[in-house]
């Protein structure tokens, strides 16, 4: 197991390294000059050149990349804005803040949104999926399946504003979405996030309903499930112990992907509800051609996805003893 984790982590580092190179090259392939943006309306060629120098953009790209890499690993004191301990992505061109600090500022909102939403959509999605599979062919099954179908065809930018309009602005049932620190005011944290959670989890849950149902139905047709029934184990026991165990594999796989990409920033959700998370940061960094921030957000999101992947693979070994992790 330890070996497996080590090998996968090494692999992840290699992937991140390659990804950073690609990101670097892509950035310099963009037709926009970040210095020109910072320079503003009263830009003189001298100012521009000075800015290029300050930002290090006048150096050859390989050298810039090398500086980026050493800063990331060892930190740097060379920045005019102040010291930058490792992991150092440098200072944002736009806000002049340390990138790592900005990421950490934005992380709690994203984590709150993601984990809270995940709890909702797992409970609702898997619950309805299991019930539908248990009552396969009945009116309950058909209702859940049809409902899931309708909802999964909706999008957050449709459902989000709809929920806002109905639940917040018209009826005032819920508070206007906002992010409050959990440590400061748990009540406000909860009430500010409830609408985003509900909207996010409604859309995700519908996928989990369908997946849980179909994978349970598939498992229930497995021969070993029939054997368990032939041994006299009750339908409920067989359902929960035998079939459920087998259907966990596809569910965990998809959940890992979903969780990883949500932790990297739920761009549309954050925008729809005006939450200060990583997703919005990513959009802003692209908008302002903010190279350090862009690299930071990208690598951070990628790390989240890779991490979730490793966790998923490790989870396989717990679910299925046939999976050997060596």
């Amino acid at each position, binding site marked *: 197991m330890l*070996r497996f984790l*080590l*090998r996968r982590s*090494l692999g992840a580092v290699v992937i991140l390294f390659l990804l950073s190179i690609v990101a670097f090259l892509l950035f310099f392939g963009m037709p926009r000059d970040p210095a020109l943006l910072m320079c503003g309306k009263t830009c003189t060629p001298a100012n521009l050149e000075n800015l290029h120098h300050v930002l290090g953009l006048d150096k050859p790209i390989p050298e810039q990349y090398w500086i980026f890499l050493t800063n990331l690993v060892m930190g740097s004191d060379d920045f005019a804005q102040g010291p930058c301990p490792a992991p150092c992505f440098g200072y944002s061109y736009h806000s002049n803040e340390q990138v790592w600090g900005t990421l950490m500022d934005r992380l709690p909102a994203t984590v709150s949104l993601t984990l809270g939403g995940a709890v909702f959509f797992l409970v609702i999605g898997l619950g309805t999926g299991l019930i539908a599979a248990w009552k396969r062919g009945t009116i309950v099954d058909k209702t859940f399946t049809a409902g899931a179908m309708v909802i999964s065809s909706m999008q957050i930018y449709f459902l989000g504003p709809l929920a806002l309009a109905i639940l917040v602005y018209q009826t005032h049932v819920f508070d206007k979405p906002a992010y409050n620190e959990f440590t400061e005011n748990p009540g406000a944290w909860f009430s500010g996030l409830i609408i985003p959670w509900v909207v996010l989890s409604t859309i995700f849950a519908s996928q989990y309903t369908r997946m849980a149902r179909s994978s349970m139905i598939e498992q229930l047709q497995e021969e070993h499930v029939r054997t368990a029934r032939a041994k006299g184990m009750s339908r409920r026991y067989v359902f929960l112990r035998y079939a459920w165990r087998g259907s966990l594999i596809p569910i965990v796989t998809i959940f890992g992907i979903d969780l990883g990409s949500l932790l990297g920033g739920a761009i549309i959700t954050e925008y729809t509800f005006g939450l200060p998370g990583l997703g919005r940061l990513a959009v802003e960094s692209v908008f302002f051609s903010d190279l350090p921030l862009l690299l930071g957000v990208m690598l951070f999101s990628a790390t989240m996805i890779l991490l979730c992947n490793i966790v998923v693979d490790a989870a396989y070994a717990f679910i299925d003893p046939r999976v050997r992790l*060596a």
Partner: protein
Amino acid sequence: MTEDLVLPAPREAATDVTDAPGEPLLVVEKLVKHFPVKGGFPIRRTVGQVQAVDGIDLTVHVGESFGLVGESGCGKSTTGRLITKLLEPTGGSISYRGKDITHATRRQLTPIRSEIQMIFQDPYSSLNPRQTVGKIVSGPMEINGIEPEGGREKRVRELLEIVGLNPEHYNRFPHEFSGGQRQRIGVARALALEPKLIVADEPVSALDVSIQAQVVNLLQKVQQELGIAFLFIAHDLAVVRHFSQRVAVMYLGKVIEVGDRDSIYTRPRHPYTHALLSAVPEVKVGGEDGEDGEEVPQRERIRLAGDVPSPISPPSGCRFRTRCWKAQDKCATEEPPLIQISGNHAGHLTACHFPEEPTIEARDEDIVLDPALAALEMDAES
């Protein structure tokens, strides 16, 4: 299946080697196929070898039906795939009509490829479901650019008739046929290029008993009337006995006994062959003894213990020794060569240091190596 065969016009021999029956057609020498096992940390590397086929010698003569029999994991299917060049051998040589084709390239194989064909086990997955029967059967002709006299379609209709299908079914799809009929399509495809050798890998084991016999008879008809040599690979000893003139028995990647059919089935020498034959359930139809009062002798009863060991780390020396009741120290250290031992008929070779008596009749005492069986039978007796 009473219709006469439509015999193809004799084709010019590709080489000078004669096609007279009895001449060696396919000669396999010291053939080896190892599959690497990957593992290790931090860099995955080969940590072992599955010794699927480990140095086997075989000769199939022109027009002969040669049976290759053994249990799962003995390497019989791998051997078939090596001969048809679906797999690349690790070592040894395969020569066809005197020409070494062991490492022949695709281009070098072109003239030979049409002469060696394969029939697969699963009549459901070995046919492309999106192609019509006509397209499937004419496929080999198309690939090899062969335009028979009267056109491909005419030839395909002939072939369908040979294998006992209605030529009118030319435009149907595989799913419209039953399992037995699909296997017939597979046979027709194999015959399309007028092959000299057909490798049939478990061609009937997926079929129901009553259908099995239809396909066995078809293959036999093809073999005898068209003079095609067969390498017939199967686990069913009775089917192999019925089909083959000569038989090789494989165990864990080795040929342990080979000889003409009657020798192997009535005068086997290798303990494994004895065990294998004794394990086949017997059906005595029409009463215990024949109508004319002739006693049918009881067959011996041998019950081995456990399953075949893993081909990743096969036993040293004789590979059967771990399950053999005659094994001695010598068997662990020295691999028995495949030789003609005294008392064997000509061409009957056995790889064993301590061969059995050449009979399969019941012994004074059963050989029961399985400890659970032995214990239960002890209880029952006392």
